[in-house]
């Protein structure tokens, strides 16, 4: 989305969702993954808003939906292109907005001509009339329609094109730069926004200042009094391939259970095992830490000073409630110590000092100080000056990039690994409310075993019937990369042909042994949402073989 309008972040704020006339939620199991955001969505519905949920699965949110488009997995682009087709053909798009704020409309119009509702209906597996009605509803709420999406859009090999097709709709509807509207990626992890804001990206210095664009590198060289490498770096996915080929020899991993959370566990593990030297800084001896040569004990959020930036660009203070346990130290302390050993001279002693250095180099958050955060609570960037109140929604008078919004004509790309006779089912992965990510933290909270005791594979009654499986029966789920044993739950939450699993119980069920390492060719986000699998009964013979 950054390519089209300037920033890859929620354009609007969480609270604003409650005031939208229409919410279009796609690839987001909000009630499970972002429960507190789903409260705002439900409130909008109670206030009379329409809620269109686009999801191959039935979820709790689909019960609240005024319309559920249960499309086939990975067919978002043809659906949204067909939306665009209807909006343009019936002249329901915001013409004034499109003319004054965007470029590339003619190309888009030409491009989506072939994506008639009938054509898309075939690919998406839903009736054409549903697509037409939904597109009309979205258009009718022009200027007050908010799109929300999460990993169901990005975790596909065509993830960045999915996002672009969503942003096309946002512009056609005139929904960028208005309250209770916009296009809103709901971020998964507490500080995924802050990590990217800080410049922990191979292409960007702090505040999204491109390392390869003239001027920025020089500015940081001057501030840091050191020379900076000129060429962009490599992403995690590329780095893992490079480890296998000997190009990458050493890795420093801070607070991430790569082996469990990354796709194709076997691949991630083999890659890390090929590295000469691994440092892991974490709070537990995770499966990833076990592969390390050196493990550094880090403090948790409850023992740390600093900031997290949430999904709506809100910078908020994190404060220590207790001292770090044992000899563990905060991530900031450890990094400062290590930097000193590398002879880096800097006048930084605390998280507050570090924040000040970063904000003074980044106009995006220059006006946000700890003092203000303590007095005012969270502040949303952009916030360039001390007296700037922060920004509730982006692109107000013009696109944040300072340029027109560019329409991106994109085509349907099916998931990288289609089903076939040998692997006839599609596995899609996701979250459950009472577990978080790889379960290293929620797995240690008492009582949570009563909510979701262990992993189970959700399978449609029709598929279970075909395979002659009983509810709760333990089965072998296999993909081209590996197998896991797991009990099944028969439910029509999963559509015919689709199996759902999470990855929160790695001790027993390493779901990511199954997932594909196909990834989006622009963002390199892995395709967690679709891979081909088969399900086999566990016979006494296969048990004996174990």
């Amino acid at each position, binding site marked *: 989305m950054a390519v089209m309008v300037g920033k890859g972040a929620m354009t609007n704020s969480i609270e604003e969702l409650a005031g939208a006339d229409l919410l279009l939620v796609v690839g987001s199991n909000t009630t499970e993954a972002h429960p507190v955001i789903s409260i705002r969505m439900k409130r909008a519905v109670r206030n009379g808003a329409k809620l269109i949920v686009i999801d191959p699965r039935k979820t709790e949110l689909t019960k609240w939906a005024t319309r559920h488009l249960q499309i086939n997995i990975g067919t978002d682009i043809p659906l949204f292109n067909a939306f665009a087709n209807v909006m343009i053909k019936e002249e329901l798009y915001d013409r004034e907005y499109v003319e004054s704020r965007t470029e590339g409309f003619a190309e888009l119009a030409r491009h989506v001509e072939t994506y008639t509702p009938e054509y898309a209906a075939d690919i998406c597996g839903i009736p054409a009339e549903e697509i037409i009605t939904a597109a009309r509803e979205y258009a009718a709420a022009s200027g007050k329609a908010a799109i929300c999406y999460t990993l169901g859009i990005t975790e596909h090999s065509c993830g960045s094109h999915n996002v672009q097709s969503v942003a096309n709709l946002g512009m056609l509807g005139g929904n960028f730069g208005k309250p209770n509207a916009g296009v809103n990626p709901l971020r998964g992890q507490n500080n995924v926004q802050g990590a*990217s804001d800080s410049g922990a990206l191979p292409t960007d210095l702090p505040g999204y200042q491109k390392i390869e664009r003239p001027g920025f590198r020089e500015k940081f060289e001057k501030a840091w009094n050191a020379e900076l490498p000129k060429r962009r770096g490599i992403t995690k996915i590329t780095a893992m391939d490079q480890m296998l080929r000997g190009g990458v020899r050493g890795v420093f991993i*801070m607070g991430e259970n790569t082996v469990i959370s990354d796709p194709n566990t076997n691949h991630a593990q083999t890659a890390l095992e090929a590295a000469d030297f691994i440092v892991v800084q974490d709070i537990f001896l995770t499966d990833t830490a076990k592969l390390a040569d050196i493990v550094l004990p880090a403090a948790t959020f409850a023992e740390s000073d600093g900031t997290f930036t949430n999904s709506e660009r809100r910078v908020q203070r994190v404060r220590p409630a*207790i001292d770090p346990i044992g000899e563990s130290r905060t991530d900031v302390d450890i990094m400062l110590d290590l930097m000193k050993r590398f002879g880096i001279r800097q006048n930084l002693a605390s998280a507050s000092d570090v924040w000040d250095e970063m904000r003074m180099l980044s106009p995006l958050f220059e006006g946000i100080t700890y003092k203000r955060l303590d007095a005012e609570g969270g502040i949303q960037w952009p916030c360039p000056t001390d007296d700037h109140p922060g920004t509730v929604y982006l692109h107000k008078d013009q696109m944040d990039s300072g340029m027109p919004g560019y329409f991106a004509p994109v085509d349907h790309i099916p998931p990288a690994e289609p089903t076939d006779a040998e692997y006839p089912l599609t596995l899609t992965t996701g979250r459950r409310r009472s577990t978080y990510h790889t379960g290293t933290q929620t797995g240690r909270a008492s009582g949570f075993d009563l909510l979701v005791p262990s992993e189970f594979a959700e399978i449609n009654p029709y598929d279970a019937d075909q395979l002659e499986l009983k509810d709760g029966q333990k089965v072998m789920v296999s993909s081209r990369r590996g197998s896991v044993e797991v009990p099944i739950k028969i439910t029509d939450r999963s559509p015919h042909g689709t199996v759902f699993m999470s990855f929160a119980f790695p001790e027993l069920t390493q779901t990511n042994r199954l997932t594909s390492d196909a990834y989006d060719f622009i963002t390199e986000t892995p395709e967690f949402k679709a891979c081909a699998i088969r399900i086999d009964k566990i016979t006494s013979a296969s048990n004996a073989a174990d």
Partner: protein
Amino acid sequence: MTTQIERKLNVAINGIEVGCNTDSRVLDAIQTAGFDVPTLCFDERIGPQGTCRICLVDVEVDGQTEQVAACTAFVADDMKVDTHSESIASYRKTILELLLSETASPANCPKCISFKKCELHSTAEEYGAKWDAFPSLVTREKAQDDNPFIQRDYDYCISCFRCTNICNDWEQASAIAVEGRGQENSIASYFNDNLLESPCTFCGQCINTCPTGALTDRKVVGKTKSENLERTKTVCPFCGVGCGIHLLSEDGELKGTEPDFDSANRGSLCVKGQFASWEFVKSEERLKFPLIKKNGNFQRASWDEALDLVTSRFTEIRDEFGPDSLVFWSSARSVTEANYLMQKFARIGIGTNNIDNCSRT
């Protein structure tokens, strides 16, 4: 385009004049004027209920005086409000004593003992209301519910219905409802079963809105002393919503979590933030000292040994294979400042832009 002129009403609160909108309630006007009246059934997120009557105030309009519940009554032009007249104070005291007669002894109130003085008992103290002024009406049956999260002790319930309203109208979970009428009413779960068998998502909102000790966090209650409890305002460590929380600690040890009503989430939390955000910090499995792997086994090391070894190995690899043979992956779970330092270290300490975070997974 016509400009809509908003009609402002003049209201005097204890002699202080404030301008109010036509749809303002008396309670809004009182708060705008900088005064406070006690409330028990009121939660601004779900609007006025008018069940507890503790916010009664004297109002005078066109020479007529009456007593109204400030939370539900609308303002009128030239209304005069007296929030703390003698008769009102005496009314409130009586109402409190009637409410107290429906509850068990304040001496055993779970919220007062383990968290902080509950709203009912702190208001009672303020008005000098006595628990035994009226014969006790505590006849409620105990809820048999052994769920590990929410303790339900209806001996302290005053039927304010904040819990059912927050569950139904704010969370929209519809796990609990009012059963029975009048004196016979009680808070019931789905088919009066254990909450684990209900649509309850254990978001903890009922606990946090309850003005008495009827609903409490079972993980905390009985394990802390309210007078020693410290609260640290911070942010939930789980998803990207970034809900404000307070960590509860006692003598340097974490004890629990409460939502922060002043942050953007307005007190909302989910089951993870309410019930899973602190125990992992105290886990016995936490790494407590640096480890260095020798012959395939981890051995305890000092910080100097560990960081010296990191320094020498990174330097060797960089010198032999070049800076781009090293990669750095920072953490979307850690604070922004640590991420900033790691990218700065990669770029000027090592000389590579091979820095990435886990935003792709």
